[in-house]
């Protein structure tokens, strides 16, 4: 009797223990994956993509981006730009409420923007509003107000810039320019980032740090109410585990890890459910243009000619990227590129090195972040450089040490990428090549050219889109000619979804995705 009883207990225990690897599918929840937890959901403090992606669904700004990357109204119904291009007058939508129930007014815009510039908050993204009259004085603590932000009435706010700046509306689409309620910020203080209160299509229902976030649709949303009730983001750091969870049916949407892209593209079952687009980014080999021998533009051009980027893109990266000819990603502007970049030409590379007095080659160091893909790419680059007598010692560093080495100018050569904060070509020219932005501000190559500086500034002041794009292309050509970088490629993103998910779209920028398009098949 005892033996039978023990066996029964064992079987029941095993059954209780072994819950199925495939959990039940919630009918009103889209389940997504994040590889890491958001840092904060306080718009003023967001710097990472993960936090920005979530915040985009909880908050609104004056304007937003559509799926083509064009500026469209958000909290503002419309706006005027003054004749001199300096003053933007926004008319604010009526009947918009924060998640705490209070109606939004123009005062909230003023508060949110002042908060972004406040020295107490010390937002890393205060530069978004740096062109606003009085912004610098306010940020430096020399003034108690921002002269360029003026509330006309409960639903009108005017923002005056110190000079015409065409990309300004695009900066307002960034998550950091989202509008927040003052009373909630004061109530939660330093913890506001964990208790976000916005006007967005979703509200934060639950956040288990490093485990999951659940967003619930805001039925009182002023815009298109989401089709789905919940978005559940599960924090799954390991790629293989995420794939197993997707295959087991526990995830609905998965950004395909790089190593698995060839598998899924060749998989007949999943291929129809893959969305792909070339991202707004540029991967590059940066030179420290203030260090020898890279002060010499001939040496930089020689290195550019010495590397067969198309071959690396096709073999090492298995066509997960699109080869680049310059810094501006494809599809960002209609104006065609004026440059074809540097095609692989070993003889020309050798000739340029001879002209610069480096016929015998030279030794240098190539800094990179530790990572399997980075190492594979840089080993290929090392091989090409060795072929022209350039011995580039690979220096893999973990991320924090790598950033410091690059920002401080220690690295003579480095492998890095630049991703768009907003879909405007200026974002790929000003922070990266203007001489005022050396180091951590974006111009990590420490490149400087008065001519290019003026060209960038001129384009920034040009309000006519077609004219401005033409100037961007001309500036791009000048930059490519100076070769402060080897322009490698633009990375593509591949997103896989289960058949029950419909309406999923890939937006040009993560901050454009409000989550209102996605819906579930019953």
């Amino acid at each position, binding site marked *: 009797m005892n033996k039978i009883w023990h066996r029964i207990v064992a079987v029941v225990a095993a059954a*209780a*223990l*072994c*819950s*199925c*690897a*495939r*959990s039940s599918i919630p009918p009103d929840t889209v389940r997504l994956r994040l590889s*890491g937890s958001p*840092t*904060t959901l306080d718009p003023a*403090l967001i*710097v*990472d993509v993960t936090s920005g992606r979530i915040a985009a669904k909880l908050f609104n700004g004056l304007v937003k981006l559509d799926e083509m990357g064009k500026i469209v109204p958000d909290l503002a119904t419309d706006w005027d730009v003054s004749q001199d291009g300096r003053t933007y007058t926004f008319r604010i939508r009526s009947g918009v409420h924060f998640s705490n129930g209070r109606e939004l007014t123009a005062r909230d815009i003023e508060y949110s923007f002042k908060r972004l510039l406040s*020295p107490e908050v*010390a937002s*890393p*993204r*205060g*530069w978004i509003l*740096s062109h606003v009259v009085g912004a610098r004085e306010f*940020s430096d603590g020399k003034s108690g107000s921002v002269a360029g932000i003026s509330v006309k009435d409960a639903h009108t706010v005017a923002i005056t810039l110190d000079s015409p700046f065409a990309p300004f509306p695009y900066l307002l689409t960034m998550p950091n320019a989202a509008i927040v309620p003052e009373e909630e910020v004061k109530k939660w203080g*330093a*913890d506001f*980032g*964990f208790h976000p209160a916005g006007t967005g299509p979703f509200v934060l229902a639950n956040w*288990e*740090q*490093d*485990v999951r976030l659940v967003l619930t649709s805001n039925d009182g949303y002023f815009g298109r109410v989401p089709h789905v009730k919940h978005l559940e983001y*599960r*924090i*799954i*750091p*390991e790629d*293989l*585990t*995420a794939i*197993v*969870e997707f*295959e*087991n049916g526990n995830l609905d949407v998965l950004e395909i890890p790089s190593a698995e892209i060839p598998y899924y593209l060749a998989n007949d079952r999943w291929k129809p459910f893959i969305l792909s687009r070339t991202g707004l980014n540029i991967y590059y080999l940066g030179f420290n243009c203030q260090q020898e021998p890279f002060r010499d533009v001939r040496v930089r051009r020689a290195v550019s000619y010495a590397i067969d980027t198309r071959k690396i893109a096709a073999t090492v990266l298995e066509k997960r990227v699109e080869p680049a000819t310059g810094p501006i990603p494809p599809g960002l502007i209609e104006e065609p590129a004026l440059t074809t970049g540097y095609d692989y030409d070993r003889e020309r590379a050798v000739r340029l090195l001879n002209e610069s007095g480096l016929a015998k080659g030279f030794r240098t160091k190539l800094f990179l972040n530790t990572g399997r893909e980075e190492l594979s790419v840089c080993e290929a680059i090392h091989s090409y450089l060795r072929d022209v007598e350039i011995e580039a010692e690979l220096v893999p*560093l*973990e*991320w*924090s*040490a790598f*950033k*410091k*080495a690059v*920002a401080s100018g220690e690295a003579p050569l480095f492998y890095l990428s*630049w*991703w768009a*904060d907003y879909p405007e070509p200026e974002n790929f020219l000003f*922070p990266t090549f203007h001489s005022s*932005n050396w*180091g*951590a*501000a*974006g111009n990590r190559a420490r490149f400087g050219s008065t001519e290019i500086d003026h060209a960038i500034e001129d384009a920034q002041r040009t309000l006519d889109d077609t004219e401005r794009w033409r100037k961007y292309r001309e500036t791009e050509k000048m930059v490519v000619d100076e070769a402060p970088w080897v322009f490698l490629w633009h990375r593509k993103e591949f997103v896989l979804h289960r058949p029950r998910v419909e309406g999923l779209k890939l937006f040009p920028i993560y901050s454009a995705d409000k989550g209102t398009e996605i819906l579930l098949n019953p």
Partner: protein
Amino acid sequence: MRAYVIKRMLLAIPTLCGVTLVTFLLMKSIPGDPVLGMVGERADPHVIAQMRQNLGLDKPFAVQYLRYISLLCRGELGRSHYTNRPVAESIATKFPNTLKLAGAAVAIAVVVGLTLGILAAVSRGTVLDTFCTLTASLGIATPVFWLALLLVMLFSYVLGWLPASGMGSGAPAFLVLPALSLGTRSAAYLARITRSSMLEVMTQDFLRTARAKGLGEWTVTLKHAARNALIPVVTLAGLDFGSYLNGSVLTETIFGWNGIGRFAMEAILKRDYPVILGTVLIGAVAFIVVNLLVDISYAFIDPRIRGMRR
């Protein structure tokens, strides 16, 4: 015994002070700048300077260290530079998860390790001994992360028996794979130690006396021999438990287990100093407590030790 415990607790204080100082020194000497990671890819120099000032990172090393000590004296662990969450609050959430995983892993290690070790010892020179020894060697040679991924593929993907990640609101099924992958290596070491220790004990005269008194072989082995072989086993199990309480980065990362290990590792990569200090401190306390418990257990395993301590 009470006096012994109190003495050990008092000795822990200078130990913990030493731990904070060494950790602080190490943190400040490794390359990397926490502020650069916090400001993103584009930041004005004056914002970086302001942030450094707000966080007190522009102060001399001694000032920063004393500030941290005064924070500890107030019972606080500071706030994360990145998330601004109180470190104590985060640790309070994550440590029980790590404790659960560590406990389950050590339980598996002890049960499997002792079984294999005793079997190997009593069947010395036989096929069973060879099997147990080879199994233990395989366990020692298998990397934890590789085993973890293999378990996920087999039990979650292929067989669909167990979940691949998460903690599932405490359901036992979510604990199985992480505990197995973490406990396997420990089980292998314990098996080897147990075998050696048992072989040494089994040659002693008191076991011959026990057999002469008519006790069965398994009674002699389990009740008499095994108990006398336990000291090195308990030592090793205690060391492993203490180590697991400091967090198992690979296991927690692969299984998405919300524990101290992953938390600490991410903090190290980001140079999030308050979190690094907090997790190291908690880890040191855990190790001190576990070592004390192991030392106390010796007195119960071998009463002669209790007499020596008097």
